[in-house]
């Protein structure tokens, strides 16, 4: 097989999809509420950017994400560590933690709306909740997973506690914790989009939901693409951060 077939196929297939899409719309096989052309989507993209609509929605969404995610992930980290390091904390809060973990975060949306209203607090809380559990679980599991022998070795050499933490605990647990944080970020973005679609008063989700109600397929498609690109970019960004933080591992 020719080595460049890979390149041809992996670039060609998305391209072909676009061409078929454009062709289908060019022949007007479907009304514009059902299918708009790629060029119309690009035009809509230009429209929401020039009116500043996209930037406004996006900055609302991302601010929200930043607030909710940092709150949830840091609380999750602290809670997970406490759960792993203290037998008492584990006995008292472990069962509740394990039980609440089973409930999909989305299921809490109606309750939180009733208790907190649909303001910013609700959205921050629901995102924080989405971010909390993966980090807490990763922190708990990875600290619990540090082999006893590591601690034995360090006590053999009479290492003081700060050495224990900086030289053993952190290097041994950080890769898994970061993986948990990355999962948290993806989850947060998913829940954020869902919450904005449900409440629909601001943010990218609202832009999409309004587009749907006004039969503006082009706007909806812009929303879908932006949601995907942002999700991808966040994950990639974090992946780079992760690789940077873990570069000692491969060295």
């Amino acid at each position: 097989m020719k080595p460049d077939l890979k390149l041809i196929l992996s670039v060609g297939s998305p391209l072909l999809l676009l061409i078929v899409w454009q062709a289908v719309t060019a022949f007007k096989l479907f009304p514009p509420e059902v299918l708009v052309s790629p060029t119309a989507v690009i035009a809509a993209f230009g429209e929401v950017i020039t009116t500043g609509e996209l930037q406004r929605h996006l900055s609302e969404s991302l601010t929200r994400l930043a607030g909710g995610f940092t709150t949830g992930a840091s609380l999750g980290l602290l809670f997970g560590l406490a759960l792993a390091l203290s037998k008492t904390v584990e006995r008292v809060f472990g069962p509740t933690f394990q039980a609440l973990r089973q409930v999909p975060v989305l299921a809490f949306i109606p309750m939180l709306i009733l208790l907190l209203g649909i303001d910013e607090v609700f959205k921050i809380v629901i995102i924080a909740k989405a971010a909390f559990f993966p980090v807490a679980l990763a922190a708990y599991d990875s600290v619990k997973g540090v082999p006893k022998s590591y601690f034995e070795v360090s006590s053999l050499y009479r290492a003081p506690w700060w050495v224990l933490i900086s030289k053993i605990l952190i290097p041994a647990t950080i890769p898994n914790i970061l993986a948990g944080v990355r999962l948290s970020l993806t989850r947060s973005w998913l829940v954020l989009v869902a919450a904005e679609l449900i409440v629909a008063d601001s943010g990218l989700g609202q832009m999409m939901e309004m587009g749907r109600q006004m039969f503006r397929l082009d706007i909806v498609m812009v929303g879908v693409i932006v949601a995907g690109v942002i999700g991808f970019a966040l994950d990639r960004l974090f992946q780079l951060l992760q690789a940077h933080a873990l570069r000692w591992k491969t060295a």
Partner: protein
Amino acid sequence: MTLKTLNLNAFKPVWLMGLIPPVLFLLWWDHEAVKGGANALAFVSLAQVGQALIDMFATGELGLSYGSSLGRALSGLLIGGGIGTLVGIAMGLSKPIEWAASPIYNSFRQVPILGWLPLIGLWFGSGDLSKLIIVALSAFYPTVLYTFEGLKQVEARLLDVARVYRLSGWQTFWRIQWPAALPSIFTGLFQALAFTWISTIGVELLFSSGAGLGAMMQQAQLQARLDIVLVCILFVGLTGFAINFLIKRLSQHVLSWRSIRA
């Protein structure tokens, strides 16, 4: 049994400590609800929640919603998982298909699953079909990935054996690649099962016409009926718990020969 082997700790009611937070929380909650005051509108007493549970059972409302949510999740799993497995097989067995399909798969996968809903809603309305498509899509992604990875990871040394005994392409797939990939395929299906339940609740919350636990919660929220919302959360959570338990058990069972593979 001697006294030494008897583990006294097992009989100590340490696990009771785990009940402290939920019990305290419920007491506080009930107190707030009964006391009334600033939050009286939102808080409902435990008695009210219990009553709602009984009423919803009696009218058959709960059973209907629960049944339709479960049905949606399972049919989504079946459809999405089935198509996903086929696509994963095609990608795992043929390099050209892998090259052509992965960029499309990977770009579609970036969109948060519920973000598709407005688009699917425009195309197929806000009824059951749209919901089913999203739920099936949530099962599709992990099954494609794990089927594909499972087939890719079949070792060349095992395929050499197939060549030595001159097995045909089909024989090699059916007798060697498929069983070798099966643990991974099951892992994907288990993940799909968990995802379908989450996405079922999500789509029902967003398109809250029709039956389903999510729809019921959303409608109750509009009527400020926290008692109903709480009963629904309880059932969503219990089902999530049951699914995770089932997955744990099944994986131990299904994946058992993975450890002895080497």
